């Protein structure tokens, strides 16, 4: 046991990617145990390490933590990326929850039924440019600071950069109406820990290709179109 956090997931972004980003931004080295088959996943379940039989799971500080948000909050609090008081925490929570809604849509997009793909992509980009990005552009404009909350780096900034890059992968020019977000992207990418994570060879995972999509489907048993819109919240059952 090295004392480093150990991430248990499959070899893809999914819900673990935000955790990789946050650990990396905090300058925390971590190890990964990535399973590649349904059998390996079931072995992990049978071992009793997964409270709800689900991943992500992160071994950290003697705990086997599950639930993405629980893990993210713990890391944010531990590495002082969660604001200085209750009010800053509330702003960070609002910002990251909004980003989670958008990133979930993008995450589930590859699982669209073929005939829905174009429509879903349009929906994602419409939401990104009319509901979500304007909020963050306005936040930066209103206080004129380099970071979203409290004039220093927080979980919200790390997640915003992650989601900006994910959205640009859907549509390269998506930030064209958002000059402050463009500056934010450049500036935040240059923070040394984050910059290192953006280099080739880091533990950052690439987008799902057809093959890894197939692997994910086998492991997690996704077997139908799961892109559901329900009051603008994506609902998945698995």
């Amino acid at each position, binding site marked *: 046991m090295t004392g480093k956090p150990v991430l248990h997931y499959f070899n893809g972004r999914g819900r673990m990617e935000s955790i990789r980003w946050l650990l990396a931004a905090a300058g925390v080295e971590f190890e990964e145990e990535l399973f590649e088959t349904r059998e390996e996943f079931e072995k992990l379940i049978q071992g009793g390490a997964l409270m709800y039989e689900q991943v992500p799971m992160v071994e950290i500080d003697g705990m086997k933590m599950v639930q993405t948000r*629980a893990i993210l909050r713990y890391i944010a609090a531990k590495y002082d990326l969660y604001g200085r008081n209750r009010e800053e925490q509330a702003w960070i*929570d*609002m910002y990251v929850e909004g980003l989670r809604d958008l990133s979930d849509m993008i995450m589930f997009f590859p699982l669209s039924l073929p005939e829905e793909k174009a429509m879903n992509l349009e929906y994602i980009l419409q939401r990104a440019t009319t509901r979500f990005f304007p909020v963050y552009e306005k936040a930066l404009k209103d206080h004129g600071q380099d970071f979203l909350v409290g004039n220093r780096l927080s979980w919200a900034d790390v997640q915003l950069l992650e989601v900006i890059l994910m959205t640009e992968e859907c549509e390269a020019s998506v930030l064209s109406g958002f000059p402050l977000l463009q500056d934010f992207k450049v500036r935040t990418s240059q923070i040394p820990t984050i910059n290192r994570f953006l280099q080739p060879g880091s533990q950052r995972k690439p987008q799902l290709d057809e093959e890894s999509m197939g692997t994910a489907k086998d492991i997690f048993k996704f077997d139908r179109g799961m892109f559901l819109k329900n009051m603008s919240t994506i609902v998945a059952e698995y």
Partner: protein
Amino acid sequence: MAGKPVLHYVSARGKMECIRWLLAAAGVEFEEKFINTPEDFEKLKKDGSLMFEQVPMVEIDGMKLVQTRAILNYIATKYDLYGKDMKERALIDMYAEGIEDLCQMFRVLAVCLPDEKESKTSLIRDRTKNRYLPAFEKVLKSHGQDYFVGNRLTRVDIQLMELLIYIEELDPSLLAPFPLLKALRSRISNLPNVKKFLQPGSQRKPPMNAKQVEEARKIFKF
């Protein structure tokens, strides 16, 4: 600003109910402004009151908080229902997020189309019986204490209370194999603030009827 929190939502459980529960359990009086028509919702959006054009929204301590989890986190922190340190918070979050996953299935069931009801109900039953209740029973068994975390009341006990009521409304027999959860439910419902909230006439909302679902569809366009 010392006024009471003001909750903005439709007059239904939805995503606001867990917030009502937590405020009530903390003994915090609150007001509600109901969205009754699509026009009410449009007005709220045009006001700029809703960060992501969504509700729930809670006016509290000079802020207009949105996003259910942000609101719950703030209330839990403010009223000391979030554990005493980071490690307790980690456990609380793990349990609360699991509870929320199952609660969300109930919410979706409440508004789903008639031909989806059976499959969704069946999935909820399976998850309740085989995934979530066993996990929570195991936690209580592991420490033998009266509350989930830190041997005192936290948000988990309250959020679970809400969930157990939904499970009972679906099928009381689902709780039968879980004696520690049943005992906790009984204990929590006897806490004075919770007891009051469980009485008729409180701000607790009933299950939606078909008409309310239709109205919600019109307002939220789903």
